[in-house]
């Protein structure tokens, strides 16, 4: 499973989002998620991938998260 697919799976599972509406270009805003949601999701990603992520202001889109995860692996 690609990193993107896994990230989408986590988003769908945690926030009841529709998978086909999530693309690499989707921002947190587009998905209707607030700052507390994003903190929770980043923690979920860390657990799922067994990595540690630095949350930065540049992490705005799903694609940014995928990139950060791949870099941390």
């Amino acid at each position, binding site marked *: 499973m690609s990193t993107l697919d896994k990230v989408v799976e986590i988003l769908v599972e945690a926030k009841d989002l529709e998978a086909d509406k999530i693309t690499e270009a989707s921002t947190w805003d587009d998905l209707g998620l*607030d*700052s*507390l949601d994003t*903190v*929770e999701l*980043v*923690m979920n990603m860390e657990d799922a991938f067994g990595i540690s992520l*630095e*949350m*930065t202001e540049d992490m705005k889109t799903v694609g940014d998260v995928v990139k950060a995860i791949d870099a941390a692996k």
Partner: protein
Amino acid sequence: MIKTPVCDLLDIRYPVLQGGMAWIADAELAAAVSNAGGLGIISAMNAGGDWVREQIRKAKSLTEKPFGVNIMLASPHVEEVAQIVAEEKVAVVTTGAGNPSKYMKLWLDAGIKVVPVVASTAMAKLVVRNGASAVIAEGGESGGHVGELTTMVLVPQVCDVVDVPVIAAGGIADGRGVAAAFYLGAAGVQMGTAFLVAKECNVHQNYKDKVLKAKDIDTMTTGRRLGHPVRVLKNPFSREYGQKEYDSSISDAQLDQMGAGALRRAAVEGDVQRGSFMCGQIAGMIHEERSAAEIITSIMTQTEQILAGGCPWLK
């Protein structure tokens, strides 16, 4: 006598923190609370570094006891102020309005105890992983910037996911509230509104009078439309603002502009019509202007009595 891990951690007599209220919590209030055995906190709010340094030095001249600085992470001066609290080696830094992770190493290296305000369990876990000594779980009953969860719901859930002391905030201003917070798992409390009316607090008298007069239903939250809800006292300004949030002919920028400077108008000018009087729901229970020492000792005495009496329903 009540003694919790928060007393040892922060080197204070009572496990009571004073909330970092922007435009309100200055060196004099912080020093008064610290001298009374709690932990006073200066609000760095949106201020520049010079003002914050001056306040820290003033507090040091007014008390030998530890005190803290609250860093508002959304401040335009946050980088500078983060550096200054490290240079001045304040005992404690509390943070609000965001994720403090970026600055935590700087503060920890300076020997500062970092105690972030958190509004969710995930944020609590994140900051503890990054070295937080304790967390303040603040429910939406509080004044100013608020999260969605209530104190009753947030505190025990945060206690379940972190292994550091949890300080409860939001809706606490007497011994019943403190005792309840302990039963929820907290080892300390933070109170803002209760100290806003302290004799040593320099906020405009009109602000204090409004808080003292407020009843249970006199606060509301505004700002949801812009994603930053704040709890304020109802007045002509907040009612109008609340209505405009639902007015699609008003742009977000106009709404933002309308809010600019409103807290200052309340706290410094005492403008009861056009000011934004940030205040917790507990204002309805606060009726008296007293010294910080009287506030703390009366609340903690009541807490002891309640805890010593146990639960009257247990047969």
